[in-house]
């Protein structure tokens, strides 16, 4: 059980305190309820570019990193399609430094041309490093476009194309900030060697006078149900043929989430998982194969991806994958097989919860979803999943008309 206390400031900022006196450190985690899905289709990559700009100085504090490092702290941030998260770890004695820095950038950024100019370049290099220069690096851009027709999950957090980032203007940046980076759209978690009284006092002092802002009401286009299978063939300068298949699944809050999560674990994720054992070890059709889901807040995707053994025909490889999925749809998995992936999940959660930083992040995540307390009920929800549930979800998801396929073929 992760213990915590929760209160809300007059401006709507939700604050969660999680005390752990066994560590000398404190963690501050701020999650803003904005991600790439909230972007204008003509200005993609903005939420992530914005994350970079958050380190370019705020209205009263010209440098963010320097005072934090002086206080012995470290920080980082990440952006997903759903949310943006900033976190700091520092010696508990210097907790107030974190309040000072984070509250000032929530108050307002410095909005400097120089910072925008540099971070545009940095993000472009990041784009190249991760998506352009790596073999198969563009495949998830293509897959998202294939699987999503309406919902903004059809682009990656890094953005649809370099030009969207290159063309970002300072005014766009300001509008984005004042729309999303307001107390009403954020969750603040303070964890580690801290007391509730002290956090209350500091939260009032540093965040209390920030204008509430308008609650952002998300109304995103709903992805229409896919009714026909979709297919794309890519030929590129890669050494091996690769197969990618995706199917639509429910949202994070859908009751089916836990069964689907365990279903992907049965298929992949360990040396005794089904796809690996059958397709890599026994049939030797793939040199590696994985099954995972995107874990997204809105309705997401289950994906299977694998690289073919040289000389194997794509048609044969794909048939073998489908055969494994058919088995999932036709026969219940063994009780012991389900128990195995439940045990794995229990152990994974225990390892994650070792770190204060990870606990703080989870509290912020569940609070953003709706309630931080959900964090403590995850294991029970997994425990309730039955072999019937796995069968039902397999049948619901692994349908031909629900599937998008990419054959990524080697030109060589």
């Amino acid at each position, binding site marked *: 059980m992760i213990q915590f206390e929760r209160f809300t400031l007059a401006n709507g900022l939700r604050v969660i305190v999680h005390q752990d006196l066994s560590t*000398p450190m404190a963690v501050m985690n701020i999650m803003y309820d904005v991600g790439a899905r909230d972007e204008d289709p003509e200005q993609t990559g903005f939420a992530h570019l914005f994350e970079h700009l958050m380190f370019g100085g705020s209205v009263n504090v010209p440098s963010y990193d320097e005072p934090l490092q002086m206080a*012995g702290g470290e920080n980082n941030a990440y952006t997903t399609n759903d949310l943006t998260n900033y976190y700091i770890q520092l010696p508990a*004695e*210097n907790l107030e430094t974190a309040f000072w820095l984070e509250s000032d950038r929530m108050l307002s950024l410095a909005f400097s041309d120089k910072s925008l100019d540099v971070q545009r370049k940095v993000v472009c290099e990041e784009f190249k*490093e991760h998506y352009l220069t790596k073999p198969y690096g563009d495949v998830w851009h293509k897959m998202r476009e294939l699987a999503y027709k309406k919902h903004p999950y059809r682009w990656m957090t890094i953005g649809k194309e370099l030009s969207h980032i290159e063309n970002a203007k300072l005014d766009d940046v300001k509008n984005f900030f004042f729309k999303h980076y307001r107390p009403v759209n954020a969750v603040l978690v303070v964890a580690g060697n801290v007391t509730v009284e002290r956090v209350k006092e500091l939260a009032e002092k540093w965040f209390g006078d920030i204008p509430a802002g308008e609650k952002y009401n998300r109304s995103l286009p709903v992805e229409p149900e896919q009714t026909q299978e979709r297919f794309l063939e890519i030929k590129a300068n890669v050494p091996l043929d690769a197969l990618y298949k995706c199917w639509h699944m429910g949202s994070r809050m859908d009751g089916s989430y836990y069964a689907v999560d365990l279903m992907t674990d049965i298929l992949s994720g360990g040396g005794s998982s089904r796809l690996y054992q059958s397709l890599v070890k026994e049939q030797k059709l793939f040199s590696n194969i994985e099954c995972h889901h995107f874990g997204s807040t809105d309705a997401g995707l289950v994906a299977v991806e694998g690289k073919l053994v040289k000389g194997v025909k794509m048609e044969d490889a794909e048939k073998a994958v489908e055969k494994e999925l058919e088995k999932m749809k036709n026969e219940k998995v063994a009780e012991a097989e389900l128990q195995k992936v439940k*045990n794995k999940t229990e152990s*994974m959660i225990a390892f994650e919860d070792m770190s204060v930083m990870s606990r703080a992040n989870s509290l912020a995540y569940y609070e953003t979803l709706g309630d931080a307390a959900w964090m403590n009920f995850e294991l029970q929800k997994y425990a309730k999943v039955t072999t019937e549930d796995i069968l039902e979800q397999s049948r619901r998801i692994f349908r031909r008309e629900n599937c998008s396929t990419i054959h990524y073929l080697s030109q060589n």
Partner: protein
Amino acid sequence: MPDRKHAPEIVDAVNFKLQLKHAEKFVLKNGVEVYAVDAGAEEVLAVEWVFSAGNWFEEQNLVAATTNFLLRNGTSKKTAFQINEYFEYYGAYLNRACYNETATITLHCLSKHIKELLPSVRELIVDSVMPQEELDIYQQNMKQRLKVNLKKSDFVASRLIDVYLYGESHPYGKYSKLEDFDTLNKEQLLDFYKKYYQQGKLVLFVAGKLPADIASLLDQYFGDLPNQPVALQEIMAQPAADRKYRITNDEAGVQGSVRMARSFPNRHHPDFMKVMVLNTLLGGFFGSRLMSNIREEKGYTYGIHSFIQNHIHDTAWMISTEAGKDVCEATIEEVYKEMKLLREQVVDEEELLLVRNYMMGGILGDLDGPFQIMGRWKNIVLNNLTEQYFYDSIHTIKTISAEELQFLAQKYLQPEAFYELVVV
């Protein structure tokens, strides 16, 4: 209204009194040393078996790595599938890794399952059979993986810079080629396994929520292994004569992988811990000179880092980044400019305090958790250092002077000592 213009008071991390939690050391019947850290709130633990079985000991490329990989791919009683299924059923993570001097097996599990799992790890150490079919699959799949990696400029650059520094016949410089996989055979692997695992030299590390009888459990399952000493041959580095390299790996590449490196002594050299401070200043953290200039000022790259390679023997000081193809040369120029600045100008006290506080805060955070503490101990033991090394490092961070740093920059940050490589 809070005063937002001024930073709140801080306690300088440099004033912290850092303690490395003590590891209990005990010795099994056969002389195997065990280091145990009993700490943490979660009911989890990790055990690491460290063998002197790294690629330093192999007579042919890839024998050490392949033997290590195949440890869990079959015993006389169980198939690879059965072994994996057993560990996974208990939600345990069983990993293995091969390094230069050492090769390891690592088990992470819920503390309540340790008694079920230890006998199965023993089985891997005394009874692996390296099935031919498993070797065939490994060869095929690793060759495919290598083909994909060879398309990546960062992968190619990291291999080549080590070749320049150490030579292709040195354990730190050699790398796997496609044909190396073809020459592997089962007999070689079994010989290596017998000599360096079944009969080889073992050290154990355990950390987390430990059961009260951990010592007797370990003695029961690992106290009868032969644990024979193995000799570590001296192998000299053969650094390349030429210093500058420009390689094209992909004509259409939009980024270059830049590596700059010079040889550097190991942790036993008196300059080592002092240079860790200078390195942090140069490129060891987000606020470093290299990051501030080359990322935050010029936007040439997503990230640039400098570090000392983590080697037990003589090592290297390296600067590494991926930069836009057209700014790779400018990036190298800027790195040299930053080295020059460090040679010619004394770092001011404010910036030095920043580095000290950052490093101290980092160590404080890094000592948080049983596995991190274990990592520190592993570092000390495997590098043949003592606990005092930790406290000496802290003392160096707190007290090294700006003048000493300048002197070290003059001694080591000389452009002519550096290899330069760009792979596009």
